[in-house]
């Protein structure tokens, strides 16, 4: 951890074991107001069969990262730099026809709102069968049977009949199940779930999360799970990456990040969230201020305008120098490792109740 700033200058070589490897990714959009740097220097790895939870607030760049992995951004207004390696294949420079072979086959995605992500024109069964026919060359009939099988697997009652229904005839929870069936129909190695349960009620959310976890055990899929809810992350993820204003600020295993967090932003998130077992009648400890505009991001550390620990670093380092994130367990902050440890134990943990 002491090598944090030394190492970070040069991009780290891709991890040999990693199935998905993102290196120094920059994504920016041209808008009327100027250039928005949605993702600014992001690197991470994901191994087969593991779940990486990406947590962050709106505008932190977590969704953009994952749309970019599958090449779902609008190339006309987007500039992508850096490297995305999926099973050794470089995706940022890949041709559209190559991407088509990846999408839905090797890597699939579940979106937040299943009603807008499903086509209202086609039956649910046909929408699930389509990627299967395209990628495996199966006949229409075999693909339909596979769709029915998948619907049964994700818990749609009476799948043979329900496959003939249109999305509007499904309830919210069932639509999300259908989306999961569609994503898993080709047995992908990578599944990107972008806030898959945010639009759902809490009892349905619990069903869907457990379903995803159980299916992952059966299929051995690697999952990138995006959410703003730390509780959901704690339920799902093996590893966690915390994002703020277009970059990762902390990374580690689930236990490391949630039980001994090192970054002031992670502390802020944990402190500001009411829990079912937190102390009553104590005011919450919100993070002051608001997330920055990505048109004119703050200099130095992106979090410095909202950070209450700046004075502990001393000098103007937080304002002038952007802290970088080392590989593995790390946090992008100028505080020393010792400071991070003592601040968390002495000042943050007691407030968590």
């Amino acid at each position, binding site marked *: 951890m002491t090598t944090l700033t030394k190492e970070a200058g040069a991009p780290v070589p891709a991890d040999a074991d990693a199935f998905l490897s993102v290196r120094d990714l920059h994504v920016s959009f041209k808008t009327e107001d100027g250039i928005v740097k949605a993702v600014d220097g992001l690197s991470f790895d994901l191994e087969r069969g593991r779940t990486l939870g990406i947590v962050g607030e709106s505008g932190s760049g977590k969704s953009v990262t994952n749309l970019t992995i599958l090449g779902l951004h609008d190339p006309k207004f987007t500039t992508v730099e850096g490297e995305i390696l999926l099973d050794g294949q470089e995706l940022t420079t890949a041709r559209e026809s190559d991407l088509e072979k990846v999408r839905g086959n090797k890597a699939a995605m579940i979106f937040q709102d299943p009603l807008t992500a499903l086509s209202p024109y086609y039956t649910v069964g046909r929408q699930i069968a389509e990627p299967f026919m395209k990628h495996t060359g199966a006949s229409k009939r075999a693909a339909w049977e596979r769709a029915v099988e998948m619907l049964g697997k994700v818990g749609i009652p009476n799948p043979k009949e329900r496959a003939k229904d249109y999305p509007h005839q499904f309830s919210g929870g069932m639509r999300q*199940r259908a989306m999961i069936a569609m994503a898993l129909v080709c047995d992908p190695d990578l599944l990107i779930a972008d806030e898959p349960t945010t639009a759902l*009620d809490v009892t349905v959310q619990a069903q869907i999360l*457990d*379903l995803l976890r*159980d299916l992952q055990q059966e299929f051995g899929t690697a999952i990138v799970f995006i959410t703003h809810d730390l509780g959901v992350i704690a339920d799902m993820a093996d590893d966690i990456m915390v994002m703020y204003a277009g970059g990762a600020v902390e990374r580690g295993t689930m236990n490391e990040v949630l039980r001994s967090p090192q970054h002031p932003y992670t502390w802020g998130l944990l402190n500001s969230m009411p829990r*079912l077992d937190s102390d*009553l009648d104590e005011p919450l400890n919100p993070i*002051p201020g*608001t997330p920055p505009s990505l048109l004119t991001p703050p200099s130095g550390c992106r979090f410095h305008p909202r950070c209450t620990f700046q004075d502990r670093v001393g000098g103007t380092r937080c304002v002038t120098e952007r802290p970088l994130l080392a590989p593995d367990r790390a946090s992008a902050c100028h505080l020393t490792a010792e400071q991070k440890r003592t601040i968390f134990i002495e000042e943050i943990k007691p407030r968590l109740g």
Partner: protein
Amino acid sequence: MKEDLVLPAPREAAADSAGEPLLQVAGLTKHFPVKGGFPIRRTVGAVQAVDGIDLTVHVGESFGLVGESGCGKSTTGRLITRLMEPTAGTISYRGKDITHASRKQLAPIRSEIQMIFQDPYSSLNPRQTVGKIISGPMEINDIVPEGGREKRVRELLEIVGLNPEHYNRFPHEFSGGQRQRIGVARALALEPKLIVADEPVSALDVSIQAQVVNLLQKVQAELGIAFLFIAHDLAVVRHFSQRVAVMYLGKIIEVGDRESIYTRPRHPYTHALLSAVPEVNLSDETDGGRRERIRLAGDVPSPISPPSGCRFRTRCWKAQDKCAAEEPPLIQISGNHEGHLTACHFPEEPTIEGRDEDIVLDPALAALEEGIEGQ
């Protein structure tokens, strides 16, 4: 943005002793007609959004209303503020029946019951300045406070943690959290006694959400305003409310003080709801304080044709014939604390500890988990 909020001393008008009932609702019902048929469209059914609920909000109290989408919690809020006409039942405010009061009769009461809406983007008029928005309620009610309206608005802006200089700005110049603060300032403009807050923080980011919750709590405690706090987030409701009612398909199925509802729930649905909340376990012991795990099957049934008897019976693991035949009354079950009412024929044990065997009703989950265990 100011973090230390300056609040004026409580008004003398708050002489009502706390604990007195402020708002009483009995048998409140709202059915929305469903039209169908051709060429003459007839009423063919009704969405039973709210179906006979009773609740009391006391002076200065914060009362939480929690439930999943479609349970009728927002409709209840709108009925109480009389933004909708109830189909049946009575609403009385300070002992006065306002269920069918006319516009004129309502006018003086409307200033005492205010509302905070969910979406800070659509609940503020984009063509009006912040000053105009917040002074709007005073203009309508022809109130000129001491020192003029503008002074009062600046005072209100300061109370909610905004810069009084923002008086002439437009809503689009503010972030979501700041807009919600403007909504709070507008609700406070007339010195209300009761604020109906319909999901006031669910559209905000986590870090901003905490700021607004703190603001509301401060306003509630220091100005002695009663709150009807409607939300789907159980942790936020627990944090904000002294008493909590749980709704399911248009009915209140359990109500009680916060402690009872969150640690000694009796209704199976309350158990299921609490166990479904994803939680960060911050304790170092991995097994310490395991919570029960209940996974229901399917979704909430349609409120157009809700199940007979107990409405939760179609998803309940304890349901028996009696549940279909007889609607359980909302009563105090033996062993419950004073004021903790539950509508269930076969209540659960009052604990949320992990059970020997998880309750997994979802067939797909059960099948997958059996397969994994069998390996």
